[in-house]
């Protein structure tokens, strides 16, 4: 129940954000430019597809009192478990109830008999969850510290720079692994670990932009008006940072998705039972040595990962190009 509510709220919030964005000329112009490029449209379609899958996997309810809750995705794509491997397009050995659309395992089954296609689809929500939650935690921290460092300068700037330089000096992947080992496996833990290690980049960017904006005439005029620093930061500087931040967040999202896959592959990501491409790839690792080669597990997870990251990167770059004032017609 709560899950459904949260999902709905998120969707509504996202809808509002996009609608308001499209009202501003900056984003409207950027979108118009993006619409013209077939590559971007393709990437956009893929992203929309993935998003739909994630949404379908977020709404769940139970059929009866002691029944397990099943999501929309489960109901459509779950197939009964087999005993062991079966290749793509293999027929179901048992009678499924309710009857699924296709009585086949489209991409075969893995070592324990789970339908590969189904497992791949389950990984989508995890990817979005990790990417989204982490970004939501990283964003406020990076924005706050970056703006303070850029605007206040001197001691505050030195301190914040010291903190993130030290943090940045520790090899990222090792720090991640160490944190995961301490925190234990799980989605929230992963989000925290990823958050701690990925706020630095955005913080630097925000600090740089704030430095640039701080000496602009509109900020001087605001100070002359008597506005205090918090107000200037929130109402004057922050809105002018947002385009860069959004683009950075979009591209960062793809990095986070990859990071989750890598960590799960290494065994310190999400737990086994949560759908994750990293887990699938890890399991598939051993399968490649078998005779005949079991390739569909690996290919399926890798392709899904590749497509999502590629689509995110294309859209992120297109957003950046769309916003660049030098390419504007005015």
């Amino acid at each position, binding site marked *: 129940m709560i899950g459904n509510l949260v999902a709905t709220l998120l969707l509504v919030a996202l809808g509002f954000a996009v609608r308001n964005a499209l009202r501003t000329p900056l984003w409207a112009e950027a979108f118009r430019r993006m619409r013209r490029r077939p590559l971007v449209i393709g990437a956009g379609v893929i992203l929309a597809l993935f998003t739909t899958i994630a949404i379908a996997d977020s709404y769940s309810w139970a059929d009866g009192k002691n029944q397990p809750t099943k999501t929309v995705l489960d109901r459509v794509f779950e197939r009964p478990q087999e005993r062991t491997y079966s290749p793509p397009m293999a027929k179901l050995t048992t009678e499924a109830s309710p009857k699924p659309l296709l009585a086949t395992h489209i991409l075969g089954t893995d070592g324990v008999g789970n339908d590969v296609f189904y497992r791949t689809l389950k990984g989508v929500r995890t990817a979005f969850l990790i990417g989204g939650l982490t970004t939501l935690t990283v964003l406020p921290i990076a924005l706050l510290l970056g703006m303070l460092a850029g605007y206040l300068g001197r001691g505050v700037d030195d301190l914040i720079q010291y903190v993130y330089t030290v943090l940045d000096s520790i090899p990222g992947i090792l720090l991640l692994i160490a944190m995961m080992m301490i925190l234990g496996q799980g989605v929230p833990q992963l989000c925290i670990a990823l958050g701690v290690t990925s706020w630095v980049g955005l913080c630097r960017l925000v600090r740089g932009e704030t430095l640039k904006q701080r000496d602009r005439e509109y900020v001087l005029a605001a100070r*002359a008006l*008597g506005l205090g620093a918090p107000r200037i930061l929130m109402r004057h500087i922050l809105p002018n940072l947002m385009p860069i931040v959004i683009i950075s967040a979009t591209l960062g999202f793809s990095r986070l998705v990859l990071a989750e896959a890598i960590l799960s592959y290494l065994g310190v990501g999400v737990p086994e039972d949560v759908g994750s491409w990293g887990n699938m790839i890890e399991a598939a690792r051993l399968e490649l040595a078998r005779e005949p080669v079991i390739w569909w597990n690996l290919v399926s997870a890798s392709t899904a990962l590749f497509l999502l990251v590629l689509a995110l990167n294309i859209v992120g770059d297109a957003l950046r190009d769309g916003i660049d004032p030098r390419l504007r017609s005015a």
Partner: protein
Amino acid sequence: MSTEAILRAVDVRQVFVQRQGLLRKSEMVAVDGVSFNLAKGSTTALVGESGSGKTTLALILLGLRRPTSGDVLFEGNSLLRLRGRDQLALRRKMQVVFQDPYGSLQPRMTVGEALMEALQVHSIGQGRSERQDRAVEQLRQVGMSPETLKRYPHEFSGGQRQRIAIARSLVVEPSVLILDEPTSALDMSVQSQVLNLLTELQEQRELTYLLITHNLDVVGYMADQVLVMDKGQIVERGSVEAVMDTPQSEATRRLLGSLLSVNPSERRLAASH
């Protein structure tokens, strides 16, 4: 125009210290002991080449930069000694309009939001609708329609933006307006519109202007007092006639020597026609 001084700068000095390497420090004196008075209701022109210190001086007068020494007095009160609510009240009395193409407007804020913010910070007007009325009225006085409130600065031309920026500064009812090159970024045909607006507003509200510019034509047209700055000091001061007809300092002569005429019979540069 009365003769009382509404704004006084008293021996203002601004020294910038830069560290060169580990032990050495270099000093750059941007403003070197500047004193002057602005009479209420008058227009004072501050002219000088870039690097003369006029921009730094303007920032000091506005309280955006603390001078190394010296003081700025507004109606007898020291600007530097004030804090908090008193400082806010004083800020209201002195506003600024810059020359950059956005005329000091935040590009991602609507005109309405900018005006309302100004009114809100200084608690002018009871409630939102009264503030909105004041904003609309101020826009009307600069020749802009009420629809302007909903739009963003970039939707307007340079001259219109300058007028909006003037409206934003005036909506808090200041006594002194510092104008940094108010017409330099504007088209020729728009400059006269903005200058007419400024003189009209000055008469209506008894405003005191400090005009920072290198455009000697505008100085000749509007200024009651001319201050010439060079290397951080005021090297000459006086009326327009005194300074422009009988310049005393080298800096003034340099400025006058670079004045371009639009009259073919009055060419100054080496003519080879």
